[in-house]
């Protein structure tokens, strides 16, 4: 049997005296949508930081297609095919939406110094291809008509979509999305859900999702991994996880309400 696309093996992260992740192991099989959920401060973003090379694990290792990622910087991990989006909207604010897309398409090009300096025909052809890809990318997330707009003046929902587009641009094989629906209204959330499905179905991208919107998580995920205080307390298909008593307790007695969102008390 071939190894899972991503394997997180006994990862621990200590930040100063604080244990952000105590001991975490889970797998993401190719072609699946796996969700990582848990209350605020559970260690979800920290897990993303470790997988994508922004933070070294204190213990344990991360394997992508059986090869260790630990020790590689984020840009090398991206080149391997693992790209993440950020919980706090991250875009190139001073640049236009189109420029944002072109910048994020970096790994789709190869042109080097001499190609650029001498405007070699190969570099020009590549530039045309990248521009076409940028247009297609913006169409995918419904921002094509905003191409000329400076990214910082986009509406919040548009900025979120641009953030996802930037992560998708490099055509990752594993896409890590950190709370993509945070702050979105119900119709935007539905669009976001549809987009993630399309990425998996049409572009064959495996997705690891961190999200607080339980309705979305339950609808979209093949597997749900529940993290609490740096430890995995449950993992399995959405239905099984939803009814797990320890999961319900982790949300401090929060009960799924009519909208399906688990409301943790403030």
């Amino acid at each position, binding site marked *: 049997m071939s190894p899972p696309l991503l394997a997180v093996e006994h990862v621990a992260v200590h930040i100063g005296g604080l244990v952000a992740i105590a001991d975490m192991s889970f797998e993401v099989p190719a072609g699946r949508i796996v969700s990582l959920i848990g209350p605020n401060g559970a260690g979800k973003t920290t897990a993303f930081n470790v997988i994508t090379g922004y933070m070294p694990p204190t213990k344990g290792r991360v394997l992508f297609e059986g090869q260790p990622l630990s020790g590689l910087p*984020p*840009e090398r991990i991206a080149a391997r095919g693992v790209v993440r989006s*950020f919980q706090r909207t*991250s875009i*190139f604010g001073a*640049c236009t939406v189109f420029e944002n897309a072109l*910048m994020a398409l970096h790994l789709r090009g190869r*042109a080097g110094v001499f190609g*650029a300096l001498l*405007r070699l025909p190969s570099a020009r052809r590549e530039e045309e291809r990248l521009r076409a890809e940028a247009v297609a990318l913006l169409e995918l997330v419904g921002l094509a008509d905003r191409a000329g707009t400076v990214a910082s003046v986009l509406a919040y929902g548009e900025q979120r979509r641009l953030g996802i587009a930037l992560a998708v641009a490099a055509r990752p094989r594993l896409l890590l999305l950190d709370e993509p629906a945070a702050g979105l209204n119900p119709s935007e959330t539905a669009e976001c859900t549809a987009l993630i499905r399309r990425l998996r179905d049409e572009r064959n991208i495996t997705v690891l999702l961190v999200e607080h919107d339980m309705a979305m998580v339950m609808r979209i995920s093949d597997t749900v991994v529940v993290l609490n205080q740096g430890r995995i307390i449950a993992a399995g298909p959405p239905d099984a996880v939803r009814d797990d008593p320890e999961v319900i307790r982790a949300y401090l007695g929060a009960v799924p309400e009519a909208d399906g969102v688990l409301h943790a008390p403030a």
Partner: protein
Amino acid sequence: MRYFLPWAFLALLAAVPILLPDPYTLSVLASAGIFIIGAISLNLLLGYTGQLSLGHAAFFGLGAYASALTTLGFDIGIGFGQRITLAPQPVWFGFLAGIVVPALFGWLLGRLAFRVRGAYFVIITICFAQVLRLLTLNWVELTQGPMALSGIPALSLWWPGLDAPIALFRKDQIYWLVLAVAAVAFLLVRQVVRSRIGRALVALRENETLARSVGIRVTHYLVIATVISAGIAGAAGSLFAHSVRIVDPDVFLFIYTVTMVIMVVTGGKGTLWGPVVGGLLFGPLPDLLRGSAPPEAQWIAYGVAMILIVMFLPRGIVPAVASLWPRRAAAKPAAVAVEAEG
């Protein structure tokens, strides 16, 4: 119109020696042009990567010395009774050395300095220029120290059918030479900035964390920018050496770096035309002040200019002027950060 304007501007500049054949004016403009080339190269670093090199005169001075020493030749002892000797080489070979040597140092400095960015990069570049100044002052056998390298030959031109190369002595010849090199430098930086490499530089400047997440290698691209920048600054230094025809350790002085920084910041960093506009304003200043004012006047003028710019045009002249044409800015998707030139 947009394509026509830069060429008309170049034609106008090329016509200056015919319209205004005054040798003093031409020599002032030529020396301004040399610093504009330096400013164009600095802009690639300061404007597009956001890294402030306060030792940029180091690359300029290295270009001047490398070019001068290659054309003059040298014979130095390196201890243990060994000597390194170089016979005088053709001037264009010197010009080439004036580009390659600073570019190599740019690579080395970039490799070392970009592990630590921001304030540390500023400090390392300042030290780099100071060390070179001390080295050229004290390594008398190679550089003549404070006595200066003199008798540097002028650059020359030759094409098939010509009996002997034409040495470029006259002020109008030097002016045209500087203009040609400046135009090439401008075009090279423009190509880089509008390419995949330029976008990587701007991405790193705007949001390094995000840039890395999409696979942009930080050190790799900052080093590329430094090498290109150093090479172009070296070409300016070489032009300086072969037009003034004497080089002393003062080429590494801090005031030269500050001159280039003021040009870039005033004109608009991160815009293609910024260093040209800033350079045309400040380039002739030292020559105009010389003789009529004490040396401190240059520093005072820079200080005043800096305060005015920060107060009234924080992004520089070119972005301010470009924003007067909102229609064009809106019609052009590729505006703002990557190319805010008019």
